[in-house]
């Protein structure tokens, strides 16, 4: 027997891609999918890259597939929103080398802005979908996905969830396939989707769907487990593992291929039972199909539709089934009440702190974005007004500013004064989807300010490089996007750079740019403190000068602690950034 090794679901997908002979992989980092590409990129003889965003990653993977090699695109659930444009037409043109999109949902929103259920993306695009329930299945189903992709001439969705991505379990790898390059062949009727061609392709997709449903009915990874009793539970993904523990010994129809749904298999197996249950995370995706077969399933009437499932809430969903299967709830969990919460916070020395503090002082309307800096929404910084998705800070800012300036019919001509709107986004987020927003601002004569927090990395997901760092995924030097030149070339004349550790500079530059009757970009440039790991002399508070006013606490630095009325600086935590010293009006905070 081959060696069995503990792997996260993400590692298993990466190793399966390697063993499937995948030569090309592209991704944009996003929790919980990030490590798929990181692990794959470390393997020999493959090409992997960080793309500026998920649309770019998927399109590059499509090109690689047409170029004849097996390719992989990996992204988190909301990443597929960005990549939705190629996603829906890609199945029309099909593949040459197999193409798999590893897509990770985040039930419970551990590190996301929503908990959309991406299974509907597979259904809507007529793309086959496989759902692993542990790392071994993540490995096996990735291997299957490549075979399926080439057999049916379609991309395949590998639908993961946080708990599959970030759980470790034992994996036994199977024999590796040798990478191949399928010779390039021109086929414009199949690959150029003008309406006339697309009309020829769509019926082929519909026929293919019927073939794939047969595959789904016969697929060896669809597992019918015959247990005791009159009830059967239909489940898929990690929910299967919870069902196994919540209802020991119950009959289970465990699905691994959930688009197309295996309607024949479901009808055939379930008609032997009087009660049909469906246990799935998020939306009633499978339940809708099961209900359409006239099986009257119990599903979301008991199973939560929001948040992540676990053994406890699955057991609680159907008390009669728990009773019938002799499932026991552990007796008296001692929940301790009234403990202080521990929300995530900006690190001591984080370069976002100074600029976000200065911004909050300007009383601006802050259109924020997705990254570590979003944490500045929490009091006492309270430096975000709105945030929806990556890049939206720039464009929402545009609409906000226009709305504030639109005249309401009265002709009275007021002098245009200080504008109130400031958009804030990180460097990686800017490259991801902020650049087109900046074009919108320049072209449509916005006159607000965009602050780009350039910390020289993609910090939140674990320090990935991007087009602004000058370093590739392999750690090799490459060209660096010059943000100042880029902004100027789009037509924004006022581009300033500030040091976020210099509060007075941040304040005066923000104030000048907000007064300006023109669009502007302020780049707040300093490397992430976790990445740099350079420490200066820690600061301390002089007891003689300090009058316990507490002003320094407003920067929300974890190195500053207030005990009673007295504030002290934790020397071990202080990185010597000096932001607190600049906030103090009595010069009570000094080095050493």
């Amino acid at each position, binding site marked *: 027997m081959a060696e*069995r090794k*503990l792997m*996260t679901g993400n590692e298993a997908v990466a190793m399966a891609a390697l063993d499937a002979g995948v030569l090309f992989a592209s991704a944009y980092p996003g*929790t*919980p999918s*990030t490590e798929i590409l990181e692990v794959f990129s470390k393997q020999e003889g493959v090409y992997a890259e960080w793309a500026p965003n998920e649309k770019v990653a998927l399109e590059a993977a499509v090109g690689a597939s047409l170029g004849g090699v097996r390719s992989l695109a990996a992204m988190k659930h909301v990443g597929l929103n960005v990549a939705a444009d190629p996603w829906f037409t890609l199945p029309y043109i099909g593949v040459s080398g197999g193409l798999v999109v590893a897509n990770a949902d985040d039930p419970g929103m*551990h*590190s996301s802005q929503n908990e959309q259920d991406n299974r509907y993306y597979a259904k809507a695009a007529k793309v086959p979908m496989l759902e692993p329930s*542990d790392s071994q299945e993540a490995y096996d189903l990735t291997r299957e996905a490549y075979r399926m992709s080439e057999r049916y001439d379609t991309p395949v969705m590998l639908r993961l969830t946080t*708990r599959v991505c*970030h*759980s*470790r*379990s*034992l994996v036994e790898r199977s024999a590796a396939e040798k990478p191949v390059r399928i010779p390039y062949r021109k086929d414009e009727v199949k690959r150029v989707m003008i309406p006339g061609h697309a009309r020829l392709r769509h019926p082929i997709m519909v026929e293919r769907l019927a073939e794939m449903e047969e595959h789904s009915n016969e697929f060896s990874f669809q597992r019918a487990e015959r247990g005791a009793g009159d009830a059967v539970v239909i489940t898929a993904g*990690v929910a299967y*593992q*919870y*069902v*196994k*523990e919540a*209802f*020991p*010994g*119950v009959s289970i129809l465990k699905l691994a291929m959930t688009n197309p749904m295996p309607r024949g298999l479901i009808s055939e197996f379930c008609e032997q039972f009087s009660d049909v249950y469906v246990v799935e995370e998020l939306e009633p995706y499978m339940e809708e199909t099961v209900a359409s077969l006239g099986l009257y399933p119990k599903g979301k009437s008991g199973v939560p539709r929001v948040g992540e499932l*676990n*053994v*406890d809430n699955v057991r609680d969903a159907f008390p009669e089934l728990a009773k019938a299967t002799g499932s026991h*709830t*552990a*007796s*008296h*969990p*001692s*929940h*301790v009440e009234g*403990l*202080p*919460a*521990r*929300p*995530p*916070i900006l*690190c001591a020395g984080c370069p976002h702190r100074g600029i976000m503090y200065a911004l909050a002082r300007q009383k601006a309307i802050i259109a924020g974005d997705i990254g*570590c800096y979003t*944490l500045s929404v*929490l009091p*006492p910084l309270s430096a975000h007004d709105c945030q929806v998705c990556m890049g939206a800070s720039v464009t929402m800012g545009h609409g906000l500013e226009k709305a504030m300036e639109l005249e309401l019919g009265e002709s009275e001509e007021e002098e245009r004064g200080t504008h109130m709107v400031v958009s804030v986004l990180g460097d990686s987020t800017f490259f991801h989807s902020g650049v087109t927003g900046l074009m919108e601002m320049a072209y449509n004569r916005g006159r607000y300010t965009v602050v780009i927090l350039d910390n020289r990395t993609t910090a*939140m*997901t*674990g320090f990935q490089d991007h087009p602004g760092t000058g370093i590739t995924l392999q750690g090799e030097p490459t060209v660096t996007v010059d943000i100042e030149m880029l902004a100027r070339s789009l037509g924004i004349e006022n581009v300033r750079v500030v040091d976020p550790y210099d509060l007075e500079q941040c304040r005066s530059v923000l104030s000048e740019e907000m007064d300006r009757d023109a669009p502007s970009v302020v780049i707040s440039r300093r490397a992430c403190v976790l990445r740099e790991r350079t420490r200066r002399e820690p600061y301390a508070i002089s007891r003689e000068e300090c009058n316990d006013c*507490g002003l320094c*606490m407003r920067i*929300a630095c*974890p190195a*500053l*602690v*207030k*005990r*009673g009325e007295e504030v002290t600086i934790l020397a071990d935590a202080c990185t010597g950034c000096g932001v607190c010293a600049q906030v103090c009006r009595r010069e009570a905070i000094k080095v050493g």
Partner: protein
Amino acid sequence: MSDQSETGSGKVTRSVVLAGVGGQGTILAANLLANALVAHGYDVKTSEVHGMAQRGGSVISMVRFGDAVASPLVPMGEADALLGTELLETLRNLEFLAAEGKVIASRTRVDPLPVLQGTSEYPADAEERIISLWPDSIIVDAPTIAAEAGDARAANTVLLGILSLALPVGVDEWLAVIEKLVKAKAVEANRNAFLVGRELSENR
């Protein structure tokens, strides 16, 4: 580790919950434990937290082992051991413990933001409360012990050393896993920290 829960297959699954603060290294500690259990021949599943929650927030990792483990998440009240790298997080996660579960924790205090800000109180009696709820708890100054063994950053490995006596995994299996998974320059300190922790446990 006495309390045992039955999984669907009728096999026994045991669980350890590791609780701490983002950045304290619970993922590595869980991975060391998981690989030691694999080396001993168990089926193992773990669960960990990445992303936003790591920025100084509460984090938990879980390790489950047995003949055939189903859920990677530990059901409430079914953990055989809680390994706490911080007192408040230990207190917060006692609810995972089975009635016969064990607490092994570091006497480490990391103030969360509401406490730093003075808007909330850190439970000064956290240790006493843990002991009153779980009288057999083992609470030690893990970073100090680790520093004496070579490096304060090996604090979690002291806790693993204490836990190790309750597990059938052999010392050699543990040390091999430490050598394999810990960065080369930290192996010596972690090996010592593990052995000191194990000795502490033996002497109790």
